[in-house]
């Protein structure tokens, strides 16, 4: 029986590693490679791409128009992430502090359940709420708080609301997981040593839950950079964001190489940021 167990152990390790490699090679390595190669090709007229290597696409990236879009997307994504973080942290903390595990699990489940409804439908619901003749305006007008309906739709604010709403659970979940596993005694110890609330937060809570903050932020920031239907639906398609441009390149403009280039560039920029960040925290074992 002992040998059987031994065999099982080694094979688990081997199969886990093998699986990791096989899967990632097929579904991550090969497609990424394809995308990278595509970014170096030229757009074709009758074929989708012509097999002609060029770095033109990368040079085009440095035009002010693209840089402006990139900056706008980056800003919007950053603001969404910070708002999500601001809303999610107290929330996850409050729930993690509860004593009953059952209640905590139930509450977390209830966070996700709305998100099993199509996000497109929920975005339409948000439209119905903030339209000129929508629910929010209807209520405010009825309560006499305003005279004229608020023009919430087709603004950057609407896009922000849509983004925060859609991406909030992606921040709540990892934060909760990270806060929950904290050893509460550390906080008690800090309090015993005379730390006040601010000190506890900045010196104990924040550093210890940093992995959760980081994962949550990544999970929110990335889609926020590339989602396209929310700016379209709520922002009036006037503000062009990165997601819209990439979508456009692949479909309408039929410029696959350019679409691939923007994607590769985005990946590079984010990798560099994360790399610099991890260098700063070299001692802590971070995920990338």
């Amino acid at each position, binding site marked *: 029986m002992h040998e059987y167990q031994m065999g099982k152990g080694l094979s688990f390790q081997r199969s886990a590693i093998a699986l990791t490699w096989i899967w990632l090679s097929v579904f991550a390595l090969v497609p990424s490679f394809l995308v990278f190669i595509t970014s170096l090709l030229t757009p074709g007229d009758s074929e989708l791409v012509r097999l002609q290597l060029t770095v033109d696409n990368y040079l085009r990236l440095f035009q002010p128009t693209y840089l402006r879009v990139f900056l706008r997307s980056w800003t919007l994504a950053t603001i969404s992430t910070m708002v999500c973080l601001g809303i999610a942290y107290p929330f996850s903390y409050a729930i993690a502090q509860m004593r009953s595990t059952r209640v905590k699990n139930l509450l977390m489940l209830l966070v996700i359940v709305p998100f099993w409804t199509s996000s497109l439908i*929920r975005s339409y619901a948000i439209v119905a709420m903030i339209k000129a003749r929508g629910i929010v305006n209807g209520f405010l007008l009825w309560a006499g708080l305003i005279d004229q309906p608020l023009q919430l739709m087709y603004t950057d604010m609407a896009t922000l609301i849509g983004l925060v709403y859609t991406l909030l659970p992606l921040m709540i979940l990892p934060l909760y997981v990270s806060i929950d596993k904290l050893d509460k005694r550390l906080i008690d110890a800090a309090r015993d040593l005379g730390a006040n609330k601010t000190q506890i937060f900045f010196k104990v809570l924040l550093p210890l839950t940093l992995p959760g903050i980081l994962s949550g932020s990544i999970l929110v920031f990335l889609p926020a950079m590339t989602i396209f239907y929310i700016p379209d639906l709520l922002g009036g398609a006037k503000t062009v964001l990165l997601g819209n441009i990439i979508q456009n390149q692949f479909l309408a403009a039929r410029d696959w190489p350019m679409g691939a280039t923007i994607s590769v560039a985005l990946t590079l920029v984010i990798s560099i940021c994360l790399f610099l960040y991890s260098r700063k925290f070299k001692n802590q074992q971070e995920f990338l």
Partner: protein
Amino acid sequence: MKTRLTTRLLKSAYIAFVYLFLYAPIFVLIAYSFNDSTYSLVWQQFTWKWYEMLLENAELHLVAYHSLILGVLSASFATLFGTMVAISLYRYPFRGKRLVYALLFILMVSPDIVTGISFLILFSTLKMPLGFWTLLLSHIAFCIPFVTVTVYSRLLGQDKNIFEAAKDLGATEGLIVRKILVPLLWPAIAAGWLLSFTLSLDDVLVSFFVNGPGFDILPLKIFSMVRVGVKPEINALCSVMFILTILIVIAYQLVTWKKEKCT
């Protein structure tokens, strides 16, 4: 005493507020499933007709069912693989770890449309017919990084001494994984499953490119109906699905509560 009460009230109020924010659009969409208007998003009058239409629309039922099955399968396999990847990264030394990190990262960063198109090219190169299988594989593929991130984040900060102790006591790797890691990581694994299920249910762009004729799923159907002006029939469907989910959650809670009381 007073401050403790106020902080507790504040906490509860805040939690309630966040839930209100999360659920408000759901209530709105349920309300609008009773709205007697095809395109307008302003309330006209009450009607049951969309629910009647929904009952008769067998195709829509099938589509919803497909989405659910796809979601459950991709979430389960993605959680399985993703956890194994996270454990491998954390515990086992092997060459090319950095590459693995990089690949997971790329999968997560890539915009949906890029992932969708690259998978499409992959599948057509492999001459795989597009349909259920390509859909399933793609969903598993893009869910894995999310599971891995969640599980790994929980793995960090685990006390390594536990594993040392277990090894000293003669435990094999398989045993350590099953008896120690999985229970410890259970919340993260469950969170990963839920996250994957959500992502799979809602995915439009990747599914769009790798799907073939014959296996329609809900997000695609909704997305394509957008041109028509999403009829409240879809609202009715989403409302029904939502109510069912809530009922299942409540039922599950009641069952486990009863079990707890008995033991």
